[in-house]
C-alpha cells in the first residue's frame, strides 16, 4: 500500500458558512473519511464551499460524496466548488458534474 495515498481534510467554520479544503486524493479509500466528516457537520450550514486547489485526484467514489453534499445543500442553502484544477475539471466535465455543481 502506498503511503502517500492520503487525504487531508481541513474544515473552517464561520457562522453558517463552512469551508472544506481538500488536499491529496479523494478516492475509494479516502472518500468514506470525507463522507463521515461531512455527515456530522452539515446540519447548521447554509453555505458550503469546497476548496480543491490541492486536490490531486477525484474518483467516482469522491464524486459521490460531492453529489451527496450537493443534494443536502440544495435543499437548504448553497454549495460551491473553488480552486478546481485541470485534472479535476476534466473529470467533472466527463462525468457531467459541471452541470450540477457551482464551480468558481
Amino acid at each position, binding site marked *: *500500500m*502506498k503511503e*502517500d*495515498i492520503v487525504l487531508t481534510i481541513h474544515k473552517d467554520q464561520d457562522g453558517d458558512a463552512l469551508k472544506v479544503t481538500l488536499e491529496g486524493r479523494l*478516492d*475509494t*479509500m479516502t*472518500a468514506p473519511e470525507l463522507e463521515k466528516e461531512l455527515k456530522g457537520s452539515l446540519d447548521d450550514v447554509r453555505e458550503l464551499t469546497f476548496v480543491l486547489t490541492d486536490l*490531486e*485526484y477525484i*474518483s*467516482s*467514489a469522491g*464524486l*459521490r460524496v460531492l*453529489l*451527496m453534499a450537493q*443534494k443536502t445543500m440544495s435543499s437548504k442553502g448553497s454549495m460551491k466548488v473553488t480552486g478546481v484544477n485541470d485534472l479535476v475539471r476534466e*473529470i467533472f*466535465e*466527463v*462525468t*457531467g*458534474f459541471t*452541470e*450540477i455543481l457551482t464551480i468558481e
Partner: protein
Amino acid sequence: MPEKSVREMGELERLHHSLAARVFHAVMMGAAILGLVALLIGLGAYAYAMANQFIGESFGLARSTNAVLEKALDVEPLVMEVMDRYRSLSEEERNTMGEESYNEFFSGIEEREDYQTLRAILKIFLDSSDVNDVYLGVYDPDTKALVYICDPDDSEEYGFLPGEWEELEERELNKFITWDGEGKLHDTSNTDAYGWMCTSGMPVAISDKTVHCFVLSDITLSEIAGSLKHFILQYAVAIIIATVLLGVILTRHMKKNLVQPINAIAGAAEQYVADRKNGVEDTDHFTRLNIRTGDEIENLSLVFADMEKDLAEYEEHLTTITAEKERIGTELALATRLQADMLPNIFPAFPERVEFDIFAMMEPAKEVGGDFYDFFLIDDDHLGMVMADVSGKGVPAALFMMATKIILANLAMVGRSPKEVLEGANNAICANNREEMFVTVWFGILELSTGKVTAANAGHEYPVLKPAGGNYELYKDKHGFVIGSMEGLKYQQYELLLTPGARLFLYTDGVPEATNAENQMFGTERMLETLNAHAGASPEEALQAVRKAVSDFVGGAPQFDDLTMLCLEYKGPEKG
C-alpha cells in the same frame, strides 16, 4: 535467554533446579551461623556465671571466716607482732625469704597460742569448702607485698609460714587497701604457680590503720575451663540437631507451600501446551490445580486459570470469526465468478457474424468490482454495447452494477434508442437509490448493415475511435450527467459512422487513472500511444497490449481501480 528450556532438561537437571534444595542449604547455613553466634554468647554467659559463682563462694568463705574470728579470737596482737618484726627487717633481710635464716626472724610466732587457734579455725574452714586456701594476710603498701600471718596450708609447695611475703601487683594492692565495702572484694590474676586464680578478701579490723589485714580466700578458676569443654560439647550437639531439624522442617514447609504448587503450575502449563498441540480444547489444567496457599503462588495459579479460560474464549471467538471470514471469502469468490459469468466472456462471442470482431475484459480491483462492459445482439442487425463504471467498489458496487446491467439490457432489448435507454435506466435507478450511488454509462448501438453507431454518454469517459487506416483518437462526445442521482434527466445521443476496418475502443477510468509508485497516472496519452503502437493487432491483442502497458507502468504499486476495456472492429456488411 536460558541455555535450554525446562522441556529439554533431564530429571537430574530439574532436581538441581530445586527451590527446596536451595532453601535447605540456606537454612543450614543460617542455622549454623546462628548456632555459632549463640554458642559464643552462651559460652561467655556460662563462663561469666561460673566465675561469679566461684568468686561468690570464695568471698563468702572469707566473710564467714572473718565473722567467726571476730567472735572467737582477737587476732590483733598476733598481727601486730608479725608486722612489727616484718617492718623491722632491712631490704636485704627481706630478700632472704625462702632461706632458713629468714624464718629465724619470726621464731616463736608459730608457738603462740593465738596463732595455733587461728590456724585451727582457718583449717576447719579450708577443709569444709572447695576453695584452695583460706588464710590471714596483710597488704603492706610500703613494700608492696602481701605478708602472711597465718596459712593453714600444710603443703611444702604452697604453704606459707608467718612473716613470709609475696610480691604484689600495684593494681591488686590498691584494690584491696582502698575497698569501700561495696560488693565482693576480689581480684583475679593469671599466676605462674596456680594458673587463673581469684583472691577474695574480707578486712580484719586492726586498730593501727596502717596495717591492712584481711582474711583471704584463694580459688582457682581453671576448673571452669574443664566444665566449659563439657558445655561446648553438649551445646554443639544440640545446635547441630536443632539446625538439621530446622532445615528439614523448613524444607518440608517450603516444598509443601512453595515448590509443590510451583511444580504443579509448571506441570499444568506443560500439559496445557501438550493439549494445545494435540488440538484438545476446553482444558481446565489450571482451574483444577486448586492451590490454596493464600499468597502470590495462589494468585499466580488464579492468573493462569483466568488466562486459560480467556484464551479458550478468545480462541472460540477467533474460530467463529475465522469461520465467518472463510464463509465470506467463499461467498466473495462465488460472487466474483458469478459477476464474471454475467458478462459475455466467451470469445469469439459471435463466431458466425462476419461483420465485426469484439473483445472485452474486466479485472476488478477487489474481489468484485463496479465496472462492467456488456454487448448483445438486439436484433439481427443491431449490436448493443455498454461500458459502465459504478461509484465505489466492492460488494455494494457489484450489486449496483448487476441491477444496472440488467436494466440497461432490458431497456435496449425492447428497441429503445440509446438516449431513451439511459433516461429510462436513470429514472428506474433513481426511484430506489438511498445510498446515493451512481453509475457512468456509455451506451451505443451499432447497425451492422451500415456501420452506423448511435450512442449516448452519461458521464462516462470519452470513447476512442480509430478510422480505417487512421490512428486511435479520443472522440469528445457530448456528456450527460451520471445515472442514478437525479430523476428526469435528459440525455443527448449522437451518431458515428464506422467504415470497414474502423475500431471503437471503450474503457473505464481505471485505465487512464492507473497510478504508479511516483503517483503519476497512466493517462489517455499513454493509452492512445499503446493502442497506436499496436494499430494492426486484433481487438484482443490490442486490449492485452494496453493491459500489459498499464501493468508495466504501475509496477509494484497495487492496482486500485478496476481495469475494464472493450474493443470493436467493424469489418463491413455481410456480403451476399
